[in-house]
């Protein structure tokens, strides 16, 4: 019997002090995990993503708590004025956190500290946005749930400072699992920014991370969201981001997938009110023998909504990337505007990309476009740079970087651009001769 199977959900029981009010939720998720099918090659949504590294990895234990020293550079975003929560292997590090005093307008709280009202809010939404029946790993995450983060913003309140949530992993004696949960509830007309920042403290890592986030946007609410997967290579991450948008709500979400030997991220946006808008941008970079799988689903359930989704990937060495982008326009969703573009750059002959845009349209008065391309660096651009004296190798790096830098340049928060550019530059090689003209 492999380490990770149908028993996984029950194999780890919560601590004695775990939130009793979440017990019913955990139970339900445990049942759903038991009823679900362990994804294999025949499971359409997991066809290209074998879970062997997880199954064989002996991850079925929670980390032992221990004191760790974390350098500030590992989690800080210089120049960003924010509220910050730092978790290391799932444990909150109070001395690294930075929270504004509690106020009516905006509350940031851990599930374990939630008052009765907040508990009610959590129970109302948790698992209703990310449905465990759709994705077994959401069920697994739910069955292990003891804690999480709640961000709640009251009607018409604009919260300028982003909430920066750092999830760091550090190696333990034995391999282990970490689970994260985030619930964001924006009341009508509320605005907020959330940065989910997954990272690790050193190259050697032995964790399986499951991070599930749920966003509930009431009418006219606006959420800016970043999800940064910057874990070191030995991690496994299987997570998801699920958002429900009411009338005229607006989500601007960006993900960066980089690191981890196996990453699977499910993104789902449901347009549940008329006139809502989603901007969904993303970058994935995969090298060595890494494998990254992005499954995005956008449900247009109501009229006059719009979605613009731009995802770019670069795959190097023998790495693999999977992108599945589904846009589903329901019969009622007239006057929808939806665009999806996925472009991929392969840097070697052994790199692989499986990209599949899926449009399902059941309304007649809509405008939809999608495109997916897989290509190599364009000869003409390369020649143009070389004809100016730039070394071919350096030109290749400049062009690859340029391919994703466009999306970095579109990030609303400049400190994030400044954080990410050097990280991406590093990805293209430690040879500073090749990367000196990127920044």
């Amino acid at each position, binding site marked *: 019997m492999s380490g990770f199977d149908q028993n996984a959900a029950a194999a780890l029981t919560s601590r004695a002090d775990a939130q009793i009010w979440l017990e019913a939720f955990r139970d339900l998720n445990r049942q759903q995990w038991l009823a679900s099918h362990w994804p294999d090659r025949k499971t359409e949504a997991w066809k290209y993503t074998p879970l062997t590294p997880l199954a064989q990895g002996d991850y079925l234990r929670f980390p032992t708590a221990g004191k760790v020293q974390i350098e500030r550079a590992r989690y800080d975003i210089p120049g960003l004025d924010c509220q910050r929560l730092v978790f290391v292997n799932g444990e909150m590090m109070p001395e690294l956190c930075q929270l504004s005093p509690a106020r009516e307008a905006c509350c940031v709280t851990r599930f374990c500290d939630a008052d009765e009202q907040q508990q009610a809010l959590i129970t109302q939404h948790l698992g209703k946005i990310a449905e465990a029946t759709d994705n077994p790993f959401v069920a697994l995450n739910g069955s292990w749930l003891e804690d999480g983060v709640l961000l709640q913003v009251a009607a018409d309140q604009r919260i300028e400072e982003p909430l920066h949530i750092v999830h760091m992993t550090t190696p333990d004696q034995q391999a282990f699992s970490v689970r994260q949960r985030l619930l964001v509830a924006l009341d009508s007309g509320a605005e907020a920014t959330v940065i989910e920042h997954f990272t690790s403290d050193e190259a050697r890592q032995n964790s399986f991370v499951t991070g599930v986030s749920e966003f509930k946007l009431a009418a006219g609410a606006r959420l800016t969201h970043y999800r940064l997967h910057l874990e070191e290579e030995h991690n496994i991450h299987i997570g998801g981001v699920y958002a429900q948008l009411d009338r005229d709500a607006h989500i601007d979400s960006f993900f960066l997938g980089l690191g981890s030997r196996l990453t699977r991220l499910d993104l789902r946006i449901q347009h549940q009110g008329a006139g809502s808008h989603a901007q969904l941008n993303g970058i994935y970079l995969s090298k060595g023998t890494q494998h990254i799988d992005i499954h995005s689903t956008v449900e247009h359930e109501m009229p006059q909504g719009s979605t613009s989704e731009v995802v770019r990937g670069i795959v190097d060495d023998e790495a693999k990337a999977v992108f599945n982008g589904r846009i589903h326009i329901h019969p009622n969703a007239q006057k929808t505007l939806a665009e999806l573009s996925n472009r991929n750059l392969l840097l070697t002959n052994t790199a692989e990309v499986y990209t599949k845009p899926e449009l399902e349209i059941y309304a007649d008065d809509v405008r939809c476009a999608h495109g997916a391309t897989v290509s190599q660096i364009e000869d003409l651009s390369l020649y143009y740079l070389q004809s100016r004296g730039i070394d071919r190798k350096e030109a290749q790096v400049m062009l690859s970087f340029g391919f994703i830098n466009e999306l970095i*340049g579109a990030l609303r928060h400049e400190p994030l651009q400044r954080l990410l550019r050097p990280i991406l530059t590093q990805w293209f090689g430690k040879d500073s001769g090749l990367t000196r003209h990127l920044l």
Partner: protein
Amino acid sequence: MLSIVDLHVRVEGKDILNGLSLEVQAGEVHAIMGPNGSGKSTLGYVLSGREGYEVVSGSATFEGHNLFELDAETRARAGLFLAFQYPVEIPGVSNMEFLKASVDAVREHQGLPPYDAVTFMKLARQQSASVSLPPEFLKRGVNEGFSGGEKKRNEILQMMLLEPKLAILDETDSGLDIDALQVVAEGVNARRSDENAFILVTHYQRLLDYIVPDFVHVLANGRIVKSGGKELALELEEKGYAWLEPEVA
């Protein structure tokens, strides 16, 4: 400076240049005119090292180097510059970084240290002002969203910064209004000296009013079919290429 002897070039199995010969000495300005599709751009590409342009026979010697033994970047570093007829857009690569990478590469080849960022930025701003390209264009992606004229100015800006020995301007004047044309001409005239040479590929006499050439050549069917002084351009303007037909055929 440049000596091309009996050059035959094939592109995708098609013979484009058929025995082209041309001598360019330091200090000279040559104009190349000729019908569309006669191989003018092909000449620029093959000299600057574009892949897919197969040299079947003949030679090109630049400053004592056999050009066809050098890769594209080495030719540029040795002082050969091609202003593209259709400059390439490269979104995501900032124009400033692109210019700096080019200039650093050429300087390194000359044994000079790279500019520090501040000095270079100043220099680039100065030069872009001299070609009337507003400084915001330095921050954008290379040629990204530039109009036709802005792209051509950006080419001239690159030429000014790289200070090549031989610059080939491939229809840099096409589609330019008179102001832009003057900018281009001033750029060339400012760099004209006993040490530099230019090859201007153009369809129009009006550029040659501003940059007076020493020689004018007609390229047709992949060969130079007629050469003369600056008055040849006027003659071509008046009569077109048809009277050269026997030679063209």
